[in-house]
């Protein structure tokens, strides 16, 4: 049954634009980040004060490379979803709100690409 009014649909109003998708993605990424972030902290402790060669040896291990890429992708997706909610709660001007959300998504995507590319470059150079 369609509960939304025609006017509401045309204006793109209402809470069900894609609310459930966002909520669910936030939970799934949260669940994935429980083991991934614990793995990352343990790995990061092992890399305290490491020189480039040590870091290269570490990231050249297949498991480390895969987990780091997974951690990075999930982390920035989760962060971006969370910051979107914060922006929606506190910024009320529509233009600034949309611009801020888009900016956060762009930065998150660029950071993800940067880390993955650096990780692959170092691992494959070793």
């Amino acid at each position: 049954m369609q509960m939304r009014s025609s006017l509401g649909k045309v204006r793109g109003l209402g809470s069900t634009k894609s609310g459930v998708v966002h909520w669910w993605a936030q939970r799934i990424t949260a669940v994935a980040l429980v083991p991934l972030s614990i793995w990352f902290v343990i790995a990061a402790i092992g890399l305290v004060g490491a020189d480039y060669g040590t870091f290269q040896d570490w990231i050249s291990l297949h498991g480390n490379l895969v987990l780091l890429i997974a951690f990075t992708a999930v982390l920035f997706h989760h962060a971006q979803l969370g910051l979107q909610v914060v922006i929606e709660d506190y910024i009320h001007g529509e233009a600034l709100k949309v611009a801020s959300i888009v900016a956060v998504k762009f930065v998150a995507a660029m950071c993800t690409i940067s880390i993955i590319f650096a990780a692959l470059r170092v691992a494959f150079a070793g």
Partner: protein
Amino acid sequence: MATAKEPRKRPLSPHLQIYRPQITSVLSITHRLTGIGLAVGALFLTYWLSSAGYGPEAFETAQAVLASWFGRLVLLGFTFCLYFHLANGIRHLAWDAGWGFELPTLRLTGWLVVIVAAIATVVTFAVGYSMRGGY
């Protein structure tokens, strides 16, 4: 013709600063604040790992920046944010599954989150320092 009238003065609910802070409300806003903190931490993570893509010199500069007293202080903050957000995030997932809404349970799990985050932060730094010879 009806003219726009001044809105009737209605009683306002008490402002936020009038409420006595409670473990539930304090942890709720702390979850959000640590989440924002961790988003900033993710930028540091990007700097650290991307530096490796530029070669040994850039990576070792980044390692030195993170090992400085300021770098360690920032990492200490991020570490606490991570453990708090992780522990309280698990608490949130339990709520999503419908568990833990009774007030005594809420208070217990709330304090548990604070204690776990504090202990885990101390242990992490203790292990980190012991592996570096304690300087």
